[in-house]
């Protein structure tokens, strides 16, 4: 069976992997970069390249060493460095003498070169793509349940266990029928986890750059850390919305680029490339919706995200929503990340106490 590797997108990798069977390919992927791949990437990449580049490179080298023949990544027409990833990845892989053929997909016509090369039959391709979209929806359901349940669980680790079980079953489901059946069974599985409904978890939104938001290795499993600190998180990189925005599909998309641009306009007139605009817009939205705080994740030196940091600080002050700004590179330690998040959660709990205390005083007055 011919294998193909593509950069991991966290849990969404499961959905994307299922779309390859119609091309006669099997995915050689995981939902998080491995430490070995990271090491290979750091050695081979230019020192000042951004973290996602090193992760991509490390993954491709690891795959090439394991005999994988094909690699796939996205094309970009934006202002950030992602545009040059493919050129540099190809060059470095060639210099290392690795024989892995790199394709890129996106903004390259109705029948992109990648699809043309493998030339799938139309019906299986459509079925596969529909299945992938269904799986994306199911992943969103699983994640939402996980984010809601984890801060309430009585025994730590139960939610993660159920999440991984559901994700594993989703991974092996081969038809839309199986996928829909799993989707109907998910709520019951999460309801079965013993929880303490009396807790009132903090609500924190996660915003920032795609790779770091989704790759659990690169972000040191931020969602899990926050969940176990009793926080209900929302990760604002949602693949369904992202794909709809790329193809300008507004149907069923609450977070269209137009809507987000309108929200952010008082603070940011043009998106600075990458997901900078989304970061600002989601912060504003979450402030309106009463979130307790936001955590902004980005690779160190990420051009668009760093340039909107002052804007996020202004939004944070104006709309009274604390924003923790974290940047990640290959030297970031899990201990450091955990400490910062713990401190942030403590601050948010104090704020809540103060707010409810002052409300009580106002009521009595």
């Amino acid at each position, binding site marked *: 069976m011919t294998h193909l590797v593509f950069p991991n997108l966290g849990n969404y990798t499961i959905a994307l992997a299922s779309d390859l069977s119609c091309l006669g390919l099997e995915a050689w992927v995981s939902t998080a970069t491995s430490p070995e791949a990271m090491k290979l990437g750091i050695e081979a990449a*230019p020192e*000042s*390249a*951004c973290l996602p580049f090193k992760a991509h490179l490390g993954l491709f080298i690891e795959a090439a060493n394991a005999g994988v023949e094909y690699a796939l990544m996205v094309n970009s027409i*934006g*202002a*950030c*460095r992602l*545009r*040059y990833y493919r*050129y*540099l990845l190809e*060059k470095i892989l060639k210099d290392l003498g690795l024989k892995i053929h790199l394709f890129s997909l996106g903004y390259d016509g109705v029948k992109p070169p990648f699809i043309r090369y493998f030339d799938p039959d139309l019906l299986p391709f459509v079925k596969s793509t529909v299945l992938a979209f269904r799986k994306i929806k199911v992943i969103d359901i699983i994640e939402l349940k996980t984010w809601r349940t984890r801060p309430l669980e009585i025994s730590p680790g139960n939610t993660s266990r159920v999440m991984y079980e559901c994700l594993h079953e989703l991974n092996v489901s081969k038809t839309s029928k199986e996928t829909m059946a799993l989707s109907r069974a998910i709520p019951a599985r999460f309801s079965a986890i013993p929880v303490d409904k009396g807790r009132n978890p903090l609500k924190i939104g996660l915003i920032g750059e795609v790779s770091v938001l989704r790759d659990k290795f690169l972000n040191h499993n931020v969602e899990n850390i926050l969940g176990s600190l009793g926080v209900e998180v929302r990760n604002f990189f949602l693949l369904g919305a992202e794909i709809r925005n790329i193809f300008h599909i507004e149907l069923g998309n609450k977070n269209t680029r137009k809507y987000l641009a309108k929200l952010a306009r008082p*603070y*940011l*007139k*043009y998106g*600075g*490339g*990458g997901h*900078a605009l989304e970061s600002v817009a989601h912060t504003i939205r979450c402030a309106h919706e009463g979130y307790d705080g936001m955590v902004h994740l980005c690779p*160190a*030196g*990420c*051009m*668009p995200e*760093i*340039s*909107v*940091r*002052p*804007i996020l*600080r*202004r939004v944070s002050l104006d709309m009274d929503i604390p924003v923790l700004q974290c*940047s990640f590179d290959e030297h970031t330690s899990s201990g450091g990340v955990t400490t910062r998040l713990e401190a942030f959660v403590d601050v948010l709990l104090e704020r809540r106490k103060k707010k409810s205390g002052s409300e009580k005083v106002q009521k009595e007055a």
Partner: protein
Amino acid sequence: MRKPRPFSEKAFKIGIPRSFFYYIYPGLWETFFREIGIEPVVSRPSSRKTLELAAFITEAEHCLPNKLFDGHLAEIVDKVDMVFVPRLLSSLKGHISCPKLSTLPDAALAEVARERDVLCVDINENVRPLSKTLLELGRKLSIGKRTVRSAIENAMRAMKDREAELDQRNKAKTKGKRFLIVGHPYTMHDAFFSESILRKLESLNVNIELMSFANNDVPESFIRWCTSNKMYHKLTTISKGEYAGVIQISSFNCGCDSMMIEIFRNILKEKSIPYMVIILDEHTAQAGTDTRLEAFVDSLEWQDDSSSVS
């Protein structure tokens, strides 16, 4: 963004941070504002003081030019009636600017220029030429069209003159083999970045030429960043006979350069032209840079000696 109040009879001062767009369009802005009757106040040349001022207010992970921009802005923001911070989306048709330049006015309004009047105009050569952008700028300040048109003519001429002056000053002092210095205009032409490097090279009797950015007739390539593509074009057209080596002046955390350096290294390797990158940040010590430059120049002399011996 608040609409700027219209220009009044009294001497109205507009602050221009000596950064980014100031170097990309040399001589343009001061002339334009002066010609339409507004006194331009350009911040002082970058220095350690600018950096010290920036250290309190700027974003830690910004590239050095962006940190200096914040310092320049902070220096003038309370000394003028309005500051000029355009939104630079593209300075070369068919290309886009570094994404940080497109968020400059919004970031400025968020922190350093909070609650000040910021005059902003979108500079986007993909959508309209510079002259039309300047017309829009005049309109925002409620200046009569005739005055604005004459100001545009004079400002463009001043920019051409300044570019010619820079090219004259930056070209090699003597004929024969020389070193090419490349870098973004806002690092290379900012003495704070380049002065010590250029003086050191001169003290080593090296014939240097700074790359020109005046020519906008640059073929499009896969590189879409304006200044990076100009550098790419220059490096693809030079030959080993003309240049003994290429030295790039860069800044720590420059996103554009982090990708471009590898591409430039490849081009120059194929041409067998020695290439060195000096990456500056606020902690860079003069001694370290001097040592590296001496070593680079020495190693090329040994290369020449050994090839002439054999």
